[in-house]
């Protein structure tokens, strides 16, 4: 149960959704775009998130698209993670999505909700960071498309009233060799200690991380270090660790030192696997 009241809107078009947001704003009401809503309801119950209205985007057809067009995979923000897994158009995304929460929860959790969430793991963004995907967003100024690298910096940098419509990924990236590992405190349930995803593009490995710092990221400095073919794996990994862009997390899932231990092992596993492939 939420400790506050809500207005609920379910627009059918992008324009209606944006209009709704700004109309509410005029009435001094804080609205939130609502996709799966799982995080809004869990944080709202604890009063960690307050709002006056939610705008459900699950009836907007663009947000539900999942298909290839012009050699691009269009993935709508309102797709549930299990839908994405079952279609399996994007195997790396399926692999990462499958590790989020649990199966029943993933029937409700959506792509857009996961990558735009407050809970900072946002693991489903990793494949898109690796594939230099584009992002379609809508707001007061209409629809626009931008590179994910412009608009995602730990979290989506959206302006007031903007929301995520789709993620666009070049088909060629989707077929590239990949690996993704989620390591947890214990066994197979729970938030990650770290999640590391990687793809191999033109014989070079790309890496993106969640759970290592308090935001998910891809780091070219770390990639440079990890791709030094002439150095030992041990040195490559150590130099990558020296380039972690922010403080490594130290929390109830695991200590900083232990996370680094797990990171070393995980990088070793992934590199061994992907460099083994032609």
């Amino acid at each position, binding site marked *: 149960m939420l400790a506050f009241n809500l207005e609920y809107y379910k627009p059918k078009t992008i324009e209606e959704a944006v209009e709704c947001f700004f109309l509410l704003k005029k009435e001094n009401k804080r609205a939130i775009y609502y996709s799966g809503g799982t995080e809004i309801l869990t944080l709202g119950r604890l009063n960690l998130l307050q709002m006056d209205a939610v705008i459900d985007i699950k009836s907007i057809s663009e947000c539900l698209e999942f298909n290839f067009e012009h050699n691009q995979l269009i993935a709508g923000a309102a797709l549930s993670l299990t839908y994405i897994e079952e279609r399996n158009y994007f195997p790396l995304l399926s692999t990462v999505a*499958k590790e989020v929460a649990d199966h029943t*929860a993933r029937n409700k959790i959506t792509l857009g909700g996961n990558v735009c969430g407050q809970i900072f793991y946002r693991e489903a963004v990793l494949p898109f960071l690796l594939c230099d995907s584009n992002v379609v967003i809508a707001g007061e100024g209409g629809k626009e498309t931008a590179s994910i690298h412009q608009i995602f910096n730990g979290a989506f940098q959206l302006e007031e009233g903007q929301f995520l419509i789709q993620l666009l990924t070049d088909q060629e990236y989707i077929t590239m060799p990949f690996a993704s590992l989620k390591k947890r405190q214990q066994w197979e349930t729970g938030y990650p200690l770290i999640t590391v995803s990687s793809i191999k593009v033109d014989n070079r490995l790309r890496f993106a991380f969640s759970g290592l710092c308090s935001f998910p990221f891809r780091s070219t400095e770390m990639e440079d270090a990890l791709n030094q073919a002439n150095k030992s794996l041990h040195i490559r990994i150590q130099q990558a660790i020296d380039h972690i862009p922010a403080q490594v997390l130290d929390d109830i899932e695991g200590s900083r030192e232990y996370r680094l231990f797990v990171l070393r092992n995980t990088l070793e596993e992934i590199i061994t696997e992907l460099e083994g492939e032609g």
Partner: protein
Amino acid sequence: MTEKIAIPLNVNGEIREVVIRPADTLLDVLRNELSLTGAKPGCLNGDCGACSVIVGGTVYKSCIMLAVEAIDSKITTIEGLKNSPIQEAFIKHFAFQCGYCTPGFIINIQALLEKHSNPTYETIKEWLSSNICRCTSYEEIEGAVFSVVEKSSDE
């Protein structure tokens, strides 16, 4: 619109009109407005699965779903299941003790079997790890599921 609203819900084959706050979760509405108390509150946080119900053929945790989201869908709660093989299998395999998580497990398994008539162990595990049972060892639940799967694949 912060006032209460009247909405129709299609629950277990009946259209029921309920007057609710838009902020009410489906779990609250099922239990408090419709007296369908089979779905249980266990965490209200989407973690335990005791409140699972089937909405439009998909299993959801009703504590992390607004009732208004279910307006146009068929909702099946544990009370809507009658003599399903998995219910009988739960009895035979002693797949419950306190019984509190049981409706959620049974609903989840029902949804699983409707989607996969002959699921692999990996699929069963992926689905059933959405629910927590604190009394049994899970082996009993595993036994119940296997018994139903084996039967249906014989047919």
